[in-house]
């Protein structure tokens, strides 16, 4: 079986802690910036931070960084499809 290449790749404790710390910092930032009003950009800022956090969780906690190309491509596809669904809907709702 070829599948064992990643099986024993234990992520070091230090890495996990660093990722956690980064997530905490980002949480602080996203809560902190709400005291400023950027208008429309509020959503953009909040979602950018959220997506960064999501990236950290997926890449490190969910080990995607250590997976092969196949799984990475699959994850990418899934998110593209979701983006298409939401994005194309806006051709309707944004132009009504």
């Amino acid at each position: 079986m070829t599948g064992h290449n990643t099986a024993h790749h234990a992520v070091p404790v230090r890495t996990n802690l660093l990722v956690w710390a980064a997530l905490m910092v980002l949480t602080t930032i996203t809560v902190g910036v709400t005291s400023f009003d950027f208008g429309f950009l509020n959503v953009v800022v909040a979602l950018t931070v959220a997506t960064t956090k999501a990236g950290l969780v997926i890449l490190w906690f969910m080990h995607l960084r250590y997976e092969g190309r196949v799984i990475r491509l699959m994850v990418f596809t899934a998110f593209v499809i979701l983006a298409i669904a939401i994005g194309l809907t806006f051709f309707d709702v944004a132009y009504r």
Partner: protein
Amino acid sequence: MSADAHDHPSFFQPLPGTKGGLASWLFSTDHKRIGMLYLYCIVTMFLVGLALGFLIRLELVAPGRTIMGPQTYNALFTLHGVVMIFLVVIPSIPAAFGNIFLPIQIGAEDVSFPRLNILSWWLYIIGAALAVLSLVTGKGAPDTGWTFYVPFSAVTTTNVDVAVIAVFILGFSSILTGLNFITTLHRLRAPGMTWTRLPLFCWSLYATGWIQVLATPILGITVLLIFAERVLGVGLFDPSRGGDPILYQHLFWIYSHPAVYIMILPAMGVISEILPVFARKPIFGYKMIAFSSLAIAFAGSLVWAHHMFVSGMSDTAVMVFSFLTFVVAIPSAIKVFNWVSTLYKGSIRVEPPLWYALAFIFLFSIGGLTGLVLGSAGTNVHVHDTYFVVAHFHYVIFGGMGFGLFGAMHYWFPKIYGRMYDKRMANWSCLIAFVGFNLLYFPMFILGLQGMPRRYYDYLPKYAEGHFFSTMGSWVLATGLLLMFWNLWRGIRHGKPVGRNPWGAATLEWMAPSPPPHHNFDAEPVVTHGPYDFTGVKPDA
């Protein structure tokens, strides 16, 4: 049974050292047995759906009341749609023939997750049971049509609650099948079975699997929202509560347009298996066909709102989705050209599976071309929600997927049962069904162009002629199909025994005994040539 059966009991017989019995089927984890369970259930549900459709047509044979009242009529067409779409067409080829043959075609012993596989069948049964329950409990059978459009589905007093839960569960069953096939194709291919040696049937199931996994959850949440709207009063589709009914249609079609490719892709896969075998020639453009399956699966996610041109969505969206719809027709057309080119200059051997495949190509082409009429926003306004749409989707689904399924039945029959049906009878039933089909559905195109709306219980006298012919067609079609099933049934019991490879096909399942033994192969096969390389392959005498 064939001579092989002596040393290796076939999958129909109990495993050596076990007693067998009903439980050894209902809780089996053998992909072949699960496939058979699906096959018998799907055929049964098909016959139920056929009977319902027959009754609908009977009511419409003449204007005015014929055999039932309007409320019964509404319930019947809803049930007909739900049964046919969710219990027959969506599982159909993948769950039955995919389960039986995908592992064998790639030289594997089973799918990746055999226990999830049987769970998926059980979910199918539970979903079917709930669908039946929705008829007999609550305040009357659902009358919304299979599309469950709001606002009607949110306010009707009929038993929509149970029906949508049934749909949710059936969706989950479909997801598990797709998930299993994708993983199996990635992980369990035999040595030498590279991606470019994969039979095209497997490619089509791979593409289908992705649609099942990525699109079905949207249907899941959509029907849950109907449930939430009815039971919890959440009202996200209710304008009086700030909601928007058009969003329901978006969500519904974000699933249901890709779902039409769940229906048709596996049938295309079957056709791509049958044609080269009976043309004795490698399929024309293997890579194009394989690739176009993936292209269809992807492009199918871009076009859903062509079902909504007159819903009140924005004009920009109408334009964009109309354009994208034309784009998605391209890969389908590529396949048709490849099939026809495969036949060109082949040494064609005319056998029943080939007749069904040819019927498929003819009917699917009509369905696909009329799809373009519907896909261009201008003409759509004229024919939306008329019998033109009904004719279109019956040509693609029944003419396409349905005849693909019948083709698969006739192609793989000898492999599954180790016997051959009466070929002459099979040819006749194909012809009768084909004629009946066109008599039934072609008049609907004309009715639709004349303005006959769909889902109506009654109609103006000027439509009487078309409806009359159509109902006649339903009788001819039903005759052909019953003859076909009867002939297959007789073949199971009395057919002439056959060997491993009666058609002279080159894919792996034909190297296994007929019927295949429990573990498919005597030893794990090593693949050295492509699936349509017929050098040295001859049909058994």
